């Protein structure tokens, strides 16, 4: 029987993680009979942090050859790893443990989230030199989202450690922002249209995570209301991720830039990294998957193959 290489994601209900699953399955298809199987799993809901910790706990008990985790609650996961002190290799994908807990995992494979935020900020600054900007964040307290938001804010403010934009470098966040979507795309769109209504002169909207765009039709309607302003770049929308409906939105002029992660690559590369770790081979501690910067002009070619 094959040994198991487990990938535990934050929640099964998020399409982003499904791309990781696809990578994992592709790896399985290509590596059949080599003694390992990639197992993709996680709690049903991204809100269930305790559930994710319990799943990891159970998998360690069940016995897997190696495990790659995308922790929703990084300190809690670190705490578990400290207690269980597993002898099998542990790595993180997509989201990392906090810096002080870095020793608990052998490697991190995933996006440089701060850099992703920086790129969003840079794309925005190509169009606007200050004004009002609203950030849409996802699930509360998610570390990777927070890192991206920090990247955006630091870049716009031109300084480190900015909690909220209050006029630094000409940028301010209006009352009511940032928005938290709880990872729900219907709510994300409702919030967006309400924000446009409340702030008719809003200069920029940064979808730090792409939830609103995961509902392309609703997103189209929301942006229809501000289409003139989008065309004239009076209003600029920068968004995270490059899933197919998001690329469609970009092509339709409903956003000005998409900064994409490579979840498929994470799912595809994680098993190999784990096997190397099992075999005691050397693996870089930080394995950044790349970022794709998609603009209307390169929308068809921007994605890494």
């Amino acid at each position, binding site marked *: 029987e094959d040994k198991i290489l487990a990938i535990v994601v934050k929640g099964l209900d998020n399409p982003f993680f499904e791309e990781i699953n696809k990578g994992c399955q592709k790896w399985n298809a290509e590596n059949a009979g080599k003694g390992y199987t990639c197992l993709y799993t996680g709690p049903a809901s991204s809100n269930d942090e305790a559930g994710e910790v319990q799943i990891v706990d159970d998998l360690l008990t069940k016995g897997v050859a190696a495990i790659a985790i995308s922790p929703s609650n990084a300190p809690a996961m670190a705490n578990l790893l400290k207690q269980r002190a597993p002898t099998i290799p542990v790595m993180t994908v997509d989201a990392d443990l906090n810096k002080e807990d870095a020793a608990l995992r052998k490697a991190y494979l995933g996006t440089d989230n701060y850099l992703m935020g920086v790129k969003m900020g840079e794309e925005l600054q190509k169009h606007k030199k200050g004004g009002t900007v609203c950030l849409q964040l996802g699930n509360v307290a998610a570390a990777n989202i927070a890192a991206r938001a920090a990247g955006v804010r630091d870049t716009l403010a031109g300084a480190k450690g900015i909690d909220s934009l209050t006029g630094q470098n000409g940028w301010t966040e209006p009352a009511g922002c940032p928005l938290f979507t709880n990872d729900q795309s219907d709510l994300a769109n409702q919030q967006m249209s*309400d924000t446009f209504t409340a702030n008719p002169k809003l200069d920029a909207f940064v979808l730090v995570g792409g939830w609103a765009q995961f509902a392309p039709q609703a997103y189209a309607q929301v942006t229809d209301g501000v289409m003139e302003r989008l065309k004239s770049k009076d209003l600029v929308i920068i968004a995270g991720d490059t899933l197919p409906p998001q690329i469609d939105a970009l092509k339709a002029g409903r956003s000005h830039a998409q900064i994409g992660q490579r979840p498929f690559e994470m799912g595809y590369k994680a098993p190999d990294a784990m096997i190397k770790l099992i075999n005691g081979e050397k693996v870089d501690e930080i394995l950044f998957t790349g970022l794709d910067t998609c603009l209307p002009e390169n929308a068809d070619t921007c994605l890494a193959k």
Partner: protein
Amino acid sequence: MAVSLDDTINRQTHSTLSWLLSRQTFWVFLAALLACIALSFLTDTFATRNNLFNVTRNFAFVGIVAIGMTVVIISGGIDLSVGSTLCLSAIVTGLVMSAGYPLAVGIALALIAAILVGVVNGVLIAYVGMPPFVVTLGMLSVARSMALVLSNNKMVYQFGPDQALLLQLGGGTTFGIANPLIVLAVMALIAGFVFRWTGWGRHIFAIGGNEHAAILTGVPVRRIKVGVYVISALTAGIAGVLMTGWLGSVTTNLGTGMELTVIAATVIGGANLAGGVGTAFGAVVGAALIEVIRNSLILLGISTFWQGAFVGSFIVIAVAFDRIRSLRQSD
């Protein structure tokens, strides 16, 4: 003597006005109306065509499901599985249409899936005699799990040849009114008619009032109860199809936690969880009020952290107000 007996028997004990004033629905309607008026003055954006369009479209989904929930609650039950049923129906629509089938087939299969959920709920509740809370709590898990299994947890966002039709159905307008709102209005009217003018409507109130008495007097209680859960699931199914059209994509977290919002809307609108009391109009008003609160917080620039506090307090205040009024009256 005979005259005096006649008189007593035919005496009217309530005037129309006192009847109206004794209805929670009326007060909540008033509250929603006042909130809207206040918002129109406090912000110059609330009363815009665009915002009103959004608000009405947004609450239509919850409102549609709330009508089904009202039927269940009147009959003395509860349905916690509506959020999951909505998701299941949306996933089925998406999968069927993306496989190239026309809109009609997608809708039909989605509604059949929803009806199946309702039938299972209803049979377990009516024939096996299990408590609705338990059955639908179980179904909440099962239906969403089915949605995960069917879709293999993939996001569905391409709906084949009839994609435009579907998007038009859920996201489009007719005479400038959002389609979901029209569906809501039609369903509310039908429900209102059924409650007041049909034997079936009378019977769901009887079952909610005293199920045992309804059985003894020959009301087909079990059949009606199955029907009640089918209707609830069906409204969730319809809302699922419309939401798919509005969003233009489906993921398996659609409708998570929606059951509580829907129940809140129903209760704010005057339905009594003990059974036997509720109106279709109330469900619509309750849904509207919740959406107006959400919308107004953003328009007023209040941090979304406070949203839960406002919505929660309003649920409590709406019902407390009614309670205090009725306490005072009975003194």
